């Protein structure tokens, strides 16, 4: 039968080996040739957009890249699906946007912030998502 020290060795050994593999794969994922995000296209606008995304906790209702709340639509590919004009109206609205009976927070954003958000969505929309973008927002493909 298994002894306690063998059990401990199994625990320590398994942990060390898988942890090393995890670090190795992390380094591999972040090598420039394995990048799927067009990392070089992140400019000041995109960064500002991300900042706005965070400070307003948009992710508390919407998902992006499939992550976030399940209360409001996925926003990956939203520019392709809805167009810039529509996004602008939603973000700049002074009363809660409510096209289908569910309210969004009224952000009343200025032009600069709105442009930053759109830049951010465009950068997100260009990421290679291993096929997820076709499933989650099928309409974006139909419109093309």
């Amino acid at each position, binding site marked *: 039968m298994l002894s306690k020290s063998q059990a401990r060795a199994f625990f320590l050994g398994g*942990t060390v080996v898988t942890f090393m593999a995890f670090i190795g794969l992390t380094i591999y994922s972040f090598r420039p040739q394995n990048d799927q995000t067009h990392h070089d296209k992140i400019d000041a606008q995109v960064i500002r957009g991300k900042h706005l995304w965070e400070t307003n906790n948009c992710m508390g209702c919407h998902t992006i890249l499939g992550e976030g709340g399940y209360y409001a639509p996925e926003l990956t590919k939203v520019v392709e699906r809805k167009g810039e004009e529509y996004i602008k109206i939603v973000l700049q609205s002074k009363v809660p946007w409510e096209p289908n009976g569910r309210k969004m927070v009224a952000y009343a954003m200025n032009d600069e912030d709105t442009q930053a958000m759109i830049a951010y969505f465009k950068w997100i929309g260009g990421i290679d998502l291993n096929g997820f973008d076709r499933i989650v927002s099928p309409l974006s493909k139909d419109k093309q």
Partner: protein
Amino acid sequence: MKYKSQKVAYWFFALCMLLFTLQIVYGFIMGFARIGMDGLHDFIPFNTARAVHTNLLVVWLLTGFMGAAYYIIPEEAQRELISVKWAYIQLISLAVVGVVAIVGYHFNYWEGRKFLEIPRELDYLVVVNVLLFLGLILGTLFTGKRKTTTALVLSMGLLFAALLYLPGMIWFDSQVTDSFFRWWVVHLWVEGVWELIMGGILSYLLIKLTGVDREVIEKWLYVIVGLTFLSGILGTGHHYYYIGVNKIWLIVGGIFSALEPLAFLAMALFAVYMYRKGEKSHPNKIALFWTIGAAIVSFIGAGLLGFAHTLPQTNLYTHGTLVTAMHGHYAFWGAYAMIVLAIISYALPNITGRKRHDKTNGHMAFWLSNIGMLGMTVAFGVAGVVQVYMERKMGLDFMKVQNEISIHFVVLLLCATLFATGITMYIIEFIKYGKPSDEAMTTDTH
């Protein structure tokens, strides 16, 4: 209770009860918003309610883990806590940081990063607080008379949980990199180091409640936490399939995360087997129900329901839908909420000296909350599966589908009412036990 300083745990448990109550209130706010009753929108929009709901969950569970450590470590190390005064200071500062964060969420003071909404400035205070906690626990453990495996696994879990908080505090320009390291906190917590904490508490409770030999229990504890890390570390890859990280994770994440249920299966078998083998003479049956219950429900919620959407082929369709919410509720409930409620049920009679552990109320609390949560899980699950079909297979518009499934949220709210009734009864029992008492030192059951 063998050591006076174990009383500190009581106040952590009391804070737990308070935060848990608030968590449920915010759950109801979201549930009602989902069936169109969003009258609170101007003051508590959905994103505020959600941040409060999930953060309160994490904070009350951590508070429970801390209380558990303050109760368990002195007994395992066979000495008093190195400082009771500092333990109270730690408790109060924890409560203050928690309250500031929760209030801040109502005033746009947050970072919109799912589960890690606490703003950066407050993160530093969290770190200081946790360092103080670890100092007290590790200081007690390493100056004590013995260092048991149970105590080591529990403390190791707490220490790693603190370390893993750090990658979540780095700013990244890329949303993808940000998410990548956010999972080092969220995933490696719940499917890694928190399982060590759970395993440690479970092992302590089984030793106390079943009377089975410590050596046997602790041997299997090593096997369980071994399986946890073996599968869970590389299993992080199941969050990297579709967020713009390299394809290599489809294979690595798929294989290793599919093995993750083994650790939970082992935990369930372990608990049931030790119970069968044990004497069954311990009077605190309610604590026993919560303990065995945690081991079994965590296997269903985390193991089976996690497995249900962890393969890349299924996750492609379920990623970011209500299917995830179904799993999130039952996994957190079974694994972490129930184990905290188990240690509280075990500790209360010992801390207060009042033996209320055969009261019908306590059993009712167990069954009502469990039936309620099972019903909620089914409601989320049906809503989620319908959402996946209509939105992702048939390509219908998001909001059209949401309107179709809103009926399942009526069911959710009914089950949530059952659940909340159970929890209310649990809290009433908690209050009836009264304050801790030094007389409890002599009337101990174990």
